[in-house]
């Protein structure tokens, strides 16, 4: 190693560094543009189906069968919606769906908050074993219990009523219990202890202190179970027997069976059924994401 040879090398290195820095900046800029292009492209791909749905729902019958299909309707046929609502019958099914959904949401919010409080804030022998059981039930596929459950509900005469769709939600479900317990864990025990010192029992503490404190988690569960009940197809398919009791999901499916290629009406129906979920999503996105975060942050 000759010292005299090192100086020019160092200088050259500096130059290379500067050049490197500049080119890196340019690279970062180009990288950013590429990222935006990909983001916009992916967004377009993901939104296209919904745009297409609304566009198709406003086309005339002639335009539906024309080839190649047009991107936007020539004229907007809003009367398609009026027709669909009548043919469906949309409002009757919506009333049924709201009825079931309201009970399911209430059941899920109350029961899971109640059960999770027991797991998170009270000590009792066998708690850990029982909670392991809660988690284990998440692994059992719904189809494994579906047939014997159906037999059970047949034997007690519940088939044809809304009871099989509503009652189970009052007995907790593993995922929501887990989510709720996670939330309770972040609440200080001292609050409960001092309430107990003042003579409050757990029922009081749960209903008066915990329910208001855990509101965000309750809303999360409420929204998730609203979505689940509103879009439930399997349950109503199995247990609802009379047409006037149909939910929107069953109604849309039978409407689809009747009018296989009348895509404008079918897309109008699909749009109407989807609207509540989409509206809810835009207003309460925070809670959707929170639900995912609560589970995501703790898993693994």
């Amino acid at each position, binding site marked *: 190693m000759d010292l005299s040879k090192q100086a020019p090398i160092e200088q050259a290195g500096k130059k290379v560094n500067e050049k490197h820095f500049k080119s890196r900046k340019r690279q970062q800029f180009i990288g950013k543009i590429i990222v935006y292009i990909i983001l916009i492209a992916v967004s377009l791909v993901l939104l296209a189906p919904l745009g297409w749905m609304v566009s198709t729902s406003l086309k005339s019958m002639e335009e539906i069968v024309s080839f190649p299909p047009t991107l936007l309707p020539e004229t907007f046929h809003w009367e398609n919606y009026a027709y669909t609502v009548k043919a469906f019958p949309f409002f009757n099914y919506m009333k049924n769906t709201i009825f079931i959904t309201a009970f399911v949401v209430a059941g899920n919010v109350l029961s899971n908050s109640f059960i999770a409080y*027991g797991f998170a804030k009270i000590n009792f022998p066998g*708690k850990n074993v029982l909670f392991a059981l809660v988690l284990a039930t998440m692994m059992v596929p719904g189809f494994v219990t579906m047939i014997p459950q159906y037999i059970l509900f047949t034997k007690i005469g519940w088939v044809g009523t809304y009871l099989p769709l509503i009652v189970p939600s009052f007995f907790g479900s593993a995922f929501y219990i887990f989510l709720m317990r996670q939330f309770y864990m972040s609440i200080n025990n001292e609050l409960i202890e001092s309430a107990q010192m003042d003579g409050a029992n757990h029922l009081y503490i749960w209903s008066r202190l915990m329910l208001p404190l855990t509101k965000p988690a309750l809303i999360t569960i409420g929204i998730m179970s609203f979505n689940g009940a509103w879009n439930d197809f399997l349950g109503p*398919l199995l247990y609802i027997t009379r047409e006037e009791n149909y939910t929107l999901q069953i109604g849309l499916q039978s409407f689809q069976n009747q009018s296989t290629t009348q895509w404008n009406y079918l897309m109008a129906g*699909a749009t109407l059924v989807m609207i509540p*979920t989409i509206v809810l999503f835009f207003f309460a996105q925070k809670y959707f994401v929170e639900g995912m975060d609560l589970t995501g942050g703790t898993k693994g």
Partner: protein
Amino acid sequence: MKNADTSQFSKAIQEIKTLKKKNWSKRKKKEAWWGLLFVAPFIIGFLGFMLLPMLFSFYGSFTNYNITSQMDFIGLANFKRMFTQDELFTTSLYNTAYYVLFNVPLTAVGSVFLAVLLNRQIFGIRAFRTIFYLPAVLSGVAVYVLWMQLLSPSSGLVNTVLSWVGIDGPAWLFDPEWTKPALILMRLWSVGGSMLLYLATLQNVPKQLYESAEVDGAGFTRKFFHITLPLITPIIFYDIVTSTIGAFQIFQEAYVMTEGGTGGPSNSLLFYNLHMWNKAFVAFDMGYAMAMSMILFIIVLTLTFINLKLAPKWVNY
């Protein structure tokens, strides 16, 4: 005197101790009752809607139960029939395995891709996150009906777009070769759910890790494979377990999109659960269907077990 005194004293202490202990255990007992009261709904629900039905199913799988009259013990006949005589059973198993095998890895790759894409602080990123997540919250018949139109051979959006680039799109739901890819495509639309899981993890990764890697001259691929991927393996693991189990239960899509559970062209969409459904609620061959549900249970348990066993080898906790 002194001796007696001390003995008394120690007795008192002993008494206080036991009293305290008694009091404490009494309180503990009371607490335990409260605890049981609170978890009681779960226990009742578990027994009534899960354990007892499953035990009934287990017994029923060895019978020719048909929900009305007969329930004779027929040993392993249902299982024998499944693997030797019921060709549709094999078909349904194949269809389901095909779907799981393609759907699970594609969804995982897709959601990791979207998460990495979204994991940066740039203008408008929240709007993109909303858009990416939106399809994942939509579910049910409306989505299936929408996709039946999108995949419609002549008037659907998918083939229209394909025709722009000169590709003559397949008949999708009408071509047995393309029915399952059609469903997988539909599923890919809603990868946003697991994407959020990955995104939440990525956002917890300290920025310095990436910065120091950049100083060392690491490019995008090296940063991805040496920092990002090892850090999200636990989530990948969790995601694969849950989405495998989820994918195995595919039913609604196939039921709605084959117009009432017929199984589609050449039974190419006859999935395991659809076949079970038809046996149970169309043919009322309940004993056989319950035997099928037992096999499903074993398959899902095995998959979970394998996943749990494999996890330590490639998961960085």
